[in-house]
């Protein structure tokens, strides 16, 4: 791969293509859409956490003078959900509510005031059911079952895998470390609340605008839920006011506004309020985890057995994938010769958890990096040296058959430790001051779609004409991360033109080729590769026409600075516009397509489809802390971060992704938590969100944010466009463990759970002062009946990527409505 110097646009700091719109208030978010005769929709949400719905009386609401329509669960016979294996959601609940916030009815009215008033007039009779508050509660109370399709009781999904005989490795290890950690749940808190506008066209077809990260998946869900052919639905993803994974599921309100627009023949908008955004959630799963890790006398890993227990909340969401992700990426960072994991997701009566930035990998990364710090302390090794010794090798195939490309982790570690003066300062700072190191790796796009198919993951289409203008179409979704900028920059680079000569149309299922959406850090790589293919095809057509004009071969035609010319023939030059005229004369109307499909994963075992990615990013971070030993109060003066992103397509934006990740990681480390409490018995004993508001759900302000020293490390990956890998999620992962390790360096106590608050530090300091271990964290991991593991020998033990056994699996109860889902697939 060539150096950045040979590019004219890629790698150069530039104003993003949508920058001017964003600073002038012109970016049109979903709630900014105002259509003639538009009505407004509000959802009535359950105030009880688990109940059968006895009756819903909407008669008074229907008589409110401002009301046009009231809908209930009976208007929606079909289930939907993001994963084909968990089609467990209803647009409005029919017979059961499963958490405080589950919607049971919808009012459509002339304005929001009238809709809200009418919500108060709806009478719902509930028959309360037992409430499950957390995974252990769920294991102990299988009878209060949330879903009939769960494996048993409230166990949504259990996984068990063995890559080599870990017990044998642990028995032969110089040391075995056993640690239990807990990572509390937290939420995305995008600044924009979700909004959707449904509209029926005069001919009966449907348009839905929504603040969604995944218009393609919403498209499928709406079609299935409402039995409308996909060809008659157009989903337009409005630019998202932040997503972070919180807008990747199809949501109730999106389906409801379409149904209402169909029934009324008028546009219908629903904008959630902040409390409702907390109920939509799909945020970080609370995870309890236990690591048993063997090392030799030098700290090299010999084997690891990881167990995770996830609090899934009330619905499936991406949960099965999340459950895999709490385990599958451990072998990608450091060389791990043998690995086994068991993972289990439980249903509880809380808002559903799902994918938040770092999806499922964040929690075990916290545990592993803190445990490595403990290992280094025990072996009296520098934690940086310990890690440098075990960094996985570029091109490696891991114990669980993940194929890695480039790895810049060693350089990341060296960079942050040099910048912070690690050698002179780590372990040597005065009491109360400390620094901690942690590393991580992350996917650059999931190697498989959420529904199995052999089609491309991203498609790009180009239209070019005699005006000199290029229009690029792609289903990718701009959520703030800069996907439109990556798309335009890629095309501009290859055609040698100015980004302003390119119009970009994205996230519109009628106009743009399918792209699976802005999740799993997939867009730059997958859309980028599709864009390269489309642009190179266009360049080929243009070069052919220009070569003919200059009577030379296409190989000598070059594109640069808005010109197309013959190399070495200064007089043989055309403006790009004139070159397009030639090309249009030769080929007729000009258009090309490009598409991208990830490589086949080497793991052939069942479940081996979660974890493979075309490329993995790597990060190292050092966090500095000041701890007040009197109060436990913790401040973070500085964070050093180095992230191997393969290639920074636009360094301004890439750096923004890295620093935004650090910010969000600090929020999770210090203060953000999705906490719940039980109301007293006289008030129903219900389990309620402690903090469904931005005031109570603390997130860092401009005053809390430390100085961040960012380095972007470029180890280009062969699979990435111009070598690029992801930057938007990976850099979040090392922040929490680095902070925990810094607290240990500062005051010698271990906080083995997140968030790390002043109270916990104080408690640990007290414990230490009384002669205890100076630790706060969970003590044990519950007994779970694990299924027989899939046994897959690692590559170096003669494995070929297949399991050597066929463990029996209890079939989950047949999903209601699965047949309908297949029908939509085929259409």
């Amino acid at each position, binding site marked *: 791969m060539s150096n950045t110097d040979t590019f004219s646009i890629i790698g150069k700091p530039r104003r993003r293509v949508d920058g001017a719109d*964003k*600073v002038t208030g012109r970016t049109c978010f979903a709630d900014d859409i105002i259509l003639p005769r538009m009505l407004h929709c509000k959802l009535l949400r359950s105030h009880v956490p688990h109940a059968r719905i006895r009756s819903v009386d909407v008669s008074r609401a229907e008589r409110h003078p401002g009301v046009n329509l009231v809908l209930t669960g009976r208007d929606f016979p079909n289930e939907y959900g993001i994963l084909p294996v968990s089609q467990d959601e209803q647009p409005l609940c029919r017979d059961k509510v499963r958490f405080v916030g589950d919607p049971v009815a919808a009012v459509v009215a002339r304005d929001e005031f009238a809709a809200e008033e009418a919500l108060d007039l709806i009478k719902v009779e509930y028959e309360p059911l037992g409430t499950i508050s957390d995974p252990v509660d769920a294991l102990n109370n299988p009878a209060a079952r949330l879903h009939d399709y769960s494996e048993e009781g409230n166990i949504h999904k259990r996984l068990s895998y063995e890559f080599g005989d870990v017990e044998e490795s642990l028995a032969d290890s110089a040391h075995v470390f056993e640690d239990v950690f807990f990572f509390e749940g937290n939420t995305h808190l995008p600044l924009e*609340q979700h909004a959707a506008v449904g509209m029926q066209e005069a001919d009966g077809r449907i348009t839905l605008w929504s603040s969604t990260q995944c218009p393609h998946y919403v498209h499928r869900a709406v079609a299935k839920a409402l039995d409308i052919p996909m060809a008659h639905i157009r989903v337009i993803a409005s630019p998202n*006011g*932040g997503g972070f994974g919180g807008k990747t599921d199809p949501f109730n309100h999106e389906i409801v506004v379409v149904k209402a627009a169909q029934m009324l023949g008028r546009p219908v908008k629903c904008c959630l309020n902040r409390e409702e955004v907390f109920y939509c959630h799909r945020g970080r799963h609370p995870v309890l985890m236990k690591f048993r890790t063997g090392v030799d006398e030098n700290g090299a890993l010999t084997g690891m057995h990881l167990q995770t227990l996830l609090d899934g909340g009330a619905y499936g969401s991406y949960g099965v994938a999340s459950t895999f992700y709490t385990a599958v990426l451990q072998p990608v960072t450091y060389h791990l010769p043998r690995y086994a994991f068991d993972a289990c997701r439980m249903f509880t009566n809380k808002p559903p958890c799902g994918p938040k930035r770092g999806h499922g990998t964040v929690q075990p990364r916290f545990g592993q990096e803190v445990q490595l710090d403990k290992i280094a302390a025990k072996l009296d090794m520098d934690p940086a040296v310990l890690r440098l010794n075990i960094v996985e090798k570029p091109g490696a195939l891991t114990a669980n058959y993940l194929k890695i490309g480039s790895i810049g982790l060693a350089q990341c570690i060296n960079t942050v430790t040099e910048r912070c003066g690690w050698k002179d300062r780590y372990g040597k700072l005065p009491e109360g001051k400390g620094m901690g190191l942690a590393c991580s790796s992350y996917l650059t796009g999931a190697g498989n779609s959420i529904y199995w198919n052999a089609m491309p993951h991203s498609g790009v289409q180009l239209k070019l004409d005699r005006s000199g203008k290029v229009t690029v179409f792609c289903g990718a979704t701009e959520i703030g991360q800069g996907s439109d900028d990556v798309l335009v920059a890629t095309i501009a680079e290859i055609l040698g033109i100015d980004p302003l000569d390119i119009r970009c149309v994205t996230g519109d299922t009628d106009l743009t080729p399918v792209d699976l959406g802005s999740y799993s850090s997939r867009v730059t790589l997958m859309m980028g590769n599709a864009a390269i293919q489309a642009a190179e095809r266009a360049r080929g057509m243009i070069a052919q026409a220009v070569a003919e004009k200059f009577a030379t071969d296409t190989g000598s035609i070059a594109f640069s600075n808005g010109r197309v010319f013959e190399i070495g023939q200064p007089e043989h030059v055309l403006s790009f516009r004139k070159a397009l005229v030639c090309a249009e004369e030769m080929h007729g109307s000009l258009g090309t397509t490009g598409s991208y499909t990830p490589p086949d994963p080497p793991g052939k075992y069942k479940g081996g489809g979660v974890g493979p990615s075309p490329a993995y990013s790597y990060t190292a971070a050092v966090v500095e802390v000041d701890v007040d030993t009197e109060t436990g109060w913790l401040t973070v003066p500085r964070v050093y971060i180095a992230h191997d992103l393969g290639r920074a397509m636009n360094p301004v934006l890439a750096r923004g992704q890295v620093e935004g990740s650090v910010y969000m990681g600090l929020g999770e480390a210090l203060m953000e938590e999705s906490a719940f409490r039980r109301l007293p018995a006289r008030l129903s004993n219900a389990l309620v969100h402690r903090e469904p508001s*931005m*005031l109570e759900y603390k997130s860092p302000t401009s005053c809390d944010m430390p100085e961040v020293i960012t380095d972007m490390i470029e180890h280009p990956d062969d699979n990435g466009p111009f070598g690029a890998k992801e930057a938007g999620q990976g850099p979040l992962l090392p922040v929490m463990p680095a902070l925990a390790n810094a607290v240990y360096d500062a005051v010698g106590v271990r906080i083995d759970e997140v968030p790390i608050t002043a109270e916990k530090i104080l408690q640990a300091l007290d414990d230490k002062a009384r002669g205890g271990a100076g630790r706060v964290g969970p003590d044990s991991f519950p007994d779970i009946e694990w299924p027989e593991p899939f046994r897959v020998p690692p590559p170096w033990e003669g494995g070929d990527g297949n399991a050597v056994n066929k463990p029996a699996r209890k079939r989950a109860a047949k999903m209601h409505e699965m047949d309908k889902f297949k029908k939509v697939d085929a259409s």
Partner: protein
Amino acid sequence: MNRVTTLKRSTQENAHISCRVNGEPVQVSVAPCKTLLEMLREDLRLTGTKHGCELGECGACAVLVDGDPILSCLSLALDAEGCAIDTIEGMAQDGQLHPLQAAFADLGGAQCGYCTPAILLTAKALLDRQPNPGRDRIREALSGNLCRCTGYQQIFEAVEEAILRLRRTEQGTDLKSVPVGARHNP
């Protein structure tokens, strides 16, 4: 919620308000229970002003009233009578971005752009009053504006770059600006 009072909300007669918006006189007929935020977005269709909570918690709805940043979700439209209101739509003048806007666009001060209108107006109010604030003062002035995307650092840098650009225009000199973009180690 008290049903009697809420029922009134949807049936009240509109009030008539005269004010200046982005320098131009405006007359608007608005439901008296509406907030300034709702009046701007729904009645004047100035949707550049955003909302993230409508409870005074996020800062996304800030506009300038007589030059001061206020949370438009917490003020009544009725209180705008006779006031001069500045929204993001009026910040660019004569087709030229304000230096703050240009710096935010150039330096990554806006990622999703949802917090951006309010942050730009809050920063403008700061610079109008205090042309050369330090980093700590900028932090403090923006502490009521949550941003979930950027981690704030590129916002601070954009404000500082705008200060330089503003000074440059004032002095008519061509000072070298701070380098754009990140430390970059290929």
